[in-house]
């Protein structure tokens, strides 16, 4: 069978992702899923795929894939100056945020991006990897359990759907409704968060200090959580009984540096939390690199819902 993409070279990190397994958290499974839903959904939309079709999430580029058959792919997220090459033919630079035809034998190469972190390669019909509890998403901390296949390495084959021969429509609406340039913040990202009762019980001075400073993203950040360095006054927050945590929970561990929980978070945590960053800002945060800066500003559940609804409508109402 040749219904695959073969990984010729992989220097960074790559995994299969869809929208995750939100409904298996009560068993202790991480929700997981694509770190940046904007780029992920954009890629599926370019191919007229289902929004939950699995795609390849590549962190910091540096991957080479060879097509075992003709297939349509879409490339989004961090711009890796991708090229398509074939023996005896000149190498062709291809555009990011677009769909492309990859012919049998051709090789797509992604270089290290200058900005953002994650790139997505979606294939028409979705990647056909192992499904576990309604999702193909791979979580690093659960990889030893083997439910969703092994961690991707050089020489691995990524199975694709061979029955997808039609050219997807060139989706102009998508381009018009939303441009990647306007989605990602270039400078300091403002994280709008829904404060919880603990945050609201802290004194005004402390809240002002929290919202008026910039935090630097620590090198110790990943798909599980983003650690931030800043100067917040030691606040004696009582440690609590372990509680379920959320996508975007702002935890304050003992050292006082905030940690924002991301897609591959654990399900339960014992550190005090101040609230939850709204999801559309978490997609933006997931593309920020260590050393970049963020700040916080409070919002409300209602406003966050409006943002998420209009975000989702871009992808569902095309």
């Amino acid at each position, binding site marked *: 069978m040749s219904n695959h993409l073969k990984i010729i070279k992989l220097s960074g990190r790559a995994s299969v992702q869809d929208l995750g397994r939100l409904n298996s958290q009560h068993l*202790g499974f991480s929700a997981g899923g694509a770190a940046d839903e904007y780029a992920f959904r954009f890629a599926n939309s370019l191919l007229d795929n289902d929004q939950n079709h699995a795609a390849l999430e590549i962190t910091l580029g540096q991957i080479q894939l060879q097509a075992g058959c003709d297939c349509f792919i879409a490339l989004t997220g961090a711009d890796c100056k991708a090229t398509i090459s074939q023996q005896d033919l000149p190498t062709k630079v291809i555009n990011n945020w677009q769909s492309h035809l990859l012919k049998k034998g051709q090789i797509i190469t992604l270089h290290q991006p200058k900005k953002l972190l994650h790139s997505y390669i979606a294939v028409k019909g979705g990647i056909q990897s192992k499904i576990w509890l309604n999702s193909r998403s791979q979580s690093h901390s659960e990889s030893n359990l083997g439910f969703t296949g092994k961690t991707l390495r050089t020489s691995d084959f990524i199975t694709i759907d061979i029955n997808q021969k039609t050219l997807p429509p060139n989706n102009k609406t998508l381009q018009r409704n939303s441009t990647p340039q306007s989605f990602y913040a270039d400078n300091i990202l403002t994280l709008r968060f829904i404060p*919880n009762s603990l945050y609201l019980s802290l004194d005004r001075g402390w809240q002002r200090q929290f919202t008026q400073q910039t935090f630097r993203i620590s090198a110790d950040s990943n798909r599980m959580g983003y650690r931030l360095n800043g100067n917040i006054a030691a606040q004696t927050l009582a440690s609590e009984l372990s509680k*379920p945590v959320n996508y975007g929970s702002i935890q304050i561990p003992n050292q006082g540096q905030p940690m924002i929980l991301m897609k591959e978070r654990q399900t*339960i945590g014992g550190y005090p939390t101040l609230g939850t960053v709204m999801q559309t800002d978490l997609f933006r945060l997931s593309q920020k690199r260590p050393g970049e800066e963020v700040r916080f500003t409070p919002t409300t559940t209602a406003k*966050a819902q409006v943002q*998420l609804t209009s975000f989702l409508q871009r992808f569902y109402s095309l």
Partner: protein
Amino acid sequence: MQVKNPISIEGNSENTVLIVWPERVCQHQHQWITDYQQLIKLQLKHYIVETISSYNSLLVYYKFELIAYKPFSDQLHYLWRSLSKVASTVTKSAVQRIEIPVYYGLEAGWDLPYLSQVLDLTAEQIIEYHSDAVYRAYSLGFTPGFCYLATLTPFLQVARRSSPRLTIPQGAVAIAGQQTAVYPSASPGGWHIIGQTPMAMFEITEQCFSPAITPGQQVTFKAIDYSEYCRLGGIISLENHE
């Protein structure tokens, strides 16, 4: 048994509501929480994506595209009131007791020497305290199939390790604070290991994950000797001192 109302029911994100009860490890309160969780799953099933309970809290993921936050939280309030009114008729989930065989030998209980020192107890006393009690399962989480059990006798309560181990072996029986648990698979962790069990903490059938322990159940530990441990299929993971 009088039940305390939740101290808060609040929107925790675009699609979740967090419900919190008084900060305590209490099996009566926890029983109310799990009964309430069952009621929510049953009565509001069209809106519910997932519910996760813990010692004194319940996180509900709902379909915010189908129902606004206000009417949804009104429903949650209403269900709590109707549940607490019919206190006497609440069907307690059939309490099934699960017995976990544990080999507490020194080569399996990596932290027994350390704990003997800080708790001022002999290894035998630690084992006796640990295997004498009946625990309640309060929450599944941390890793797949990991179930938080409480309450550990005050004589065994000790803070978790200051630096977590990179790998705690599958089957490790461990304690931290007022809790005890079995590590279902190898993972990093900061709890103190007092023994190892050959019992699998989950079963997998086609697209179905069944944890050995679910919240609300009762759990006991039974000391077994090395030959019994081997007979049950156990293989000791020795500590790697590097």
